[in-house]
Structure formats: C-alpha cells, structure tokens
C-alpha cells in the first residue's frame, strides 16, 4: 500500500511536470543571481531543495539536440531545472541559465534550512515577484523590477528595489542588526509586532507616511522637526535601526 501511494505521488508529480534538485547544505547563505519568480521558505532540514513546475511544452529544439545551454559566464545547467548550482565557500550559489523553464510566473520554489540566510539579486523585467517566508537569518535583496513579499521574517535585512513594491510582515524584530526596506517607485509596507523596539528612519520625498504607532520624534536642542516626508524617531523607547524609504510612493508602518 505504501509503495503504491509513493508511486501514485511520483506519477502525479511527473504528469504535473514537477522537478526537484536537492543539495545538502547548512549555514552560510543562499546566493541567487537572476533567478526568476522565487518562493523561498525556511524549514527544519539540512538540504536546499529547488523545485519547479516545468512548462508542459518545454522542449529543447532539434537544432539544439546534444548541446547544452550556457550563460555569459560560461556556466551550464547542472540541475536539469535551468539552474547552475555550486558551493561558494560556506555559501550555496544558484544562477539561472537562460530563460526560466517554469510555468507562467510560477517560478522556483526553494526550501532552505533555517540556518541559512539569503542574498538575492535580479536586474531584468523577467522576475515579477520574490516571496520569502519564515527566514530568521539575514536577507539581502537587490532588484530592479521585482515585487518583494516577506512573511514571518525577523531581520536583519536590507531590501532594495527600483520598481517593485515591498511588503513585509515581521514575526519579531531582531535586535542584532538593521532592517532597511527601500524602493524608488514602489510602496513600502511593513507590519511589526506592536511591542517592537526600533529607531525609525522613514522617508518619502513625494509620498505619504502612514502609521498606527506612537512615534517619539527625535529632537534637536529641544525642537522637533515635523515633516510628513521624513521622520526620525523611536517606537517603544528605541532599538534596532528600522529604515523604510520610498522615492515616489507611500510608506506604511503598521502594528501586526
């Protein structure tokens, strides 16, 4: 019965086009360069598991038969899911080779051990979203067009995107190092527990700042600088640096 169930699951996965690549790794960080539409979730395990739902019609052309796709660095797909994955010191590095083999905007799902941080960079139009869930180690993101959604994270982190929106829901606010969320043309929306201690730096030259926190605004020689474009202050008597900036859109800092 057990074997039958396993066989059925495997058949369903194959029919659905699901593919997986696993590599044992712990600690350090997962470096992702140019990987489209990624969902990352931390779990209690010791392997990094890349999975993808391939396009049903994804086939190599007859002309390319026997050849391998490579990228500008000469790297090749060593995972059969369109990624070049390699160890980089204590880190694990994954670079997408060519176009994503994934179904429309589904992208890659990656499970990482809880001991790992993330360093994600993407510069083209091809990645609509990045979702990160349940990661307690450092997250560094640098994108041009990707929307970023963070859930049950703690920081430290540094997120920047030119066109993307940033939404972050914090399980707690790690007091070890800074949290910064920056977008030029997108909004920044952060929800942190109401008891979080933070030193705030909020700035949006052309947008509006919204919050339900009671912010203690910093004073200079007893004078408070009041502007709706730039606020420096503290919540719950201050703590780690929490930096939220948008060039042209609104900033939302809310209690979770």
């Amino acid at each position, binding site marked *: 019965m057990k074997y039958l169930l396993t066989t059925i699951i495997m058949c369903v996965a194959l029919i659905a086009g699901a593919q997986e690549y696993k590599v044992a790794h712990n600690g350090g960080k997962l470096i992702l360069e140019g990987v489209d539409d990624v969902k990352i979730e931390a779990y209690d395990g010791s392997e990094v598991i890349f999975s993808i739902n391939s396009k049903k019609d994804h086939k190599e052309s007859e002309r390319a038969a026997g050849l391998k796709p490579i990228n500008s660095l000469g790297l090749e797909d060593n995972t059969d899911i369109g990624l070049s994955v390699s160890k980089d010191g204590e880190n694990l590095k994954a670079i997408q080779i060519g176009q994503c083999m994934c179904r429309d905007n589904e992208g890659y799902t990656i499970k990482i051990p809880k001991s790992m941080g993330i*360093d994600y960079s993407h*510069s083209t139009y091809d990645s609509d979203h990045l979702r990160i869930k349940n990661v307690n180690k*450092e997250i*560094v993101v*640098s994108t*041009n067009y990707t929307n970023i959604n963070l859930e049950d994270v703690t*920081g*430290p*982190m*540094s997120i*920047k*995107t*030119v*066109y993307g929106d940033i939404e972050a829901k914090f399980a707690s606010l790690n007091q070890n*190092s*800074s*949290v*910064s969320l*920056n977008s*030029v*043309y997108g909004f920044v929306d952060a929800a942190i527990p109401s008891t979080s201690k933070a030193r705030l*730096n909020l700035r949006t*030259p052309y947008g509006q700042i919204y919050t339900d926190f009671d912010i203690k605004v910093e004073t*200079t020689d007893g004078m408070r600088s009041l502007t709706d474009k730039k606020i*420096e202050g503290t919540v719950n008597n201050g703590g*780690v*640096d929490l*930096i939220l*900036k948008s*060039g042209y859109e609104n900033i939302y800092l809310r209690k979770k």
Partner: protein
Amino acid sequence: MNKENKIIDYLEGQMSFEESIKFEQELKKDPVLKEEFATYQLMYNEVDQIKLEKPSITLKSNFDHLLETEIKNSRKTKTLTFRNIRNVAAVAAILVIGILVGQNWTQRSFISKIDSHNAELVSEMKRNMNSESVSGRIEALQVSHQFKSPENEVLKTLIKSMKNDESPNVRLAAVEALDNFAKEEIVRTAFVKQLSQEKDPFVLIALINTLSEQKVEKAIDPLQHITNANDVAKFIKDEAHMGLIKIEKI
C-alpha cells in the same frame, strides 16, 4: 611722610579733617603731586570695578586663609591699606586667573569628552564596517547620523564605502548617509566622480537626486553623459534628465 603715603592715606580716609584740607591745598599748588594723585585715584577706581567670579568653596577658603595671614603679618593697621592691597590684588589676580583657567579647563574637559565620544563612534563605525553582514555594515553607517557636523574621518569612511563596498545595498546606505553632509565640497566631488563609476541603478538614482537637489553644477556634464549613454536604463536617463532640469541648466 612721603607723597605716596599721603596720597594713599587721603584716598583711604586715614587723614584727619585738618590733614585732608592741608593735603588738598598742596594738591592745588603742586602739579606733580596732582598728577600722581590722579594716577592713584584711577587705580583705586579700577580696583573697585573688578568683578570677581564666584570662587569655589575650596578656593574661597584658601583665599580667606591667605588674606587672614597677610593681615596678621601686617599688624600695622586693622584696616586693609593700599600697601598690602598690592599683595591682595596679586592674590586676587591669581584667584581670577585660577577661576578662568578652571573654567577653560572645564570647557576643554567637556570638549575633550565630546572628542573622545566621537572618536569612539568613529572607531566603532570603522570596526563594524568590516562586518561580513550587509545589514551589519549598513548599521555601522547609521552611526554617522549621530554627528551633527561633518567629521573628516566619518566622511572618509562613508565615501570609501560608497566607492568600494561590493554590496550595492551598502553603497546606497553610504550615499544616503552622505546626503546629510551634501553641502561639503568633498562629498559633492565624491558624488560627481561616483556618477560615472556606479553601475547599480538605485545607487545612481540616489546620487542624481542629491546632486540635483543641491544644484551641483559640476554634475551637469556627467548627467548629460548619462542621458546620452546607450547602455543605461531608460528610467535612469529620465532621472538624469529631471536632475538636469532641477539644476536649471537645461
């Protein structure tokens, strides 16, 4: 009694009525005495006008003791006379100098404490800039917000990060931190130079925004170069174009 003693006795009210009348008559007749008297009178007036800072309890106690000893030693009169006033004035001068030196020392001590605090901050900042963590380095840069006026070492550290840090996130944080000191020529020059070297779009936009808000004319050439470059994204060209408009030179 010589002239000097007469003058002093007169000014201190030690003469009898008859002696005073006689002395005043001598003054009218003797221009040399009159001139000498005027000098002493001026000195007395100036001594009266000296305003002493309130001394500390210890200093006052020491001074009182010294004064008492001096009075006991003089034995000549129970009242303080100009003869020993010179000594008293000397002591008073020492007292005043002591107070002024003390005040100066206190100020120096305060400034020294600030310098020491700033030096600690700079040292902490530099140390944390070696962190392997990107957010750790960004946090180190946030220390610069504690400096209301630009410290040379702080500016150097920020500029070095803006130019050399491998993470664009840290370079962006460095530009944003330097934005607080954008009126400094060293910062403006570094920004202009970085315009032609920076590849990250977000950092470029931050540079363009600061330079245009500050209306830095030296940025015009590199901004025009960006608007005409083939390998630059359109949104960066748009920002550069807007920057040129803000500098009002287009």
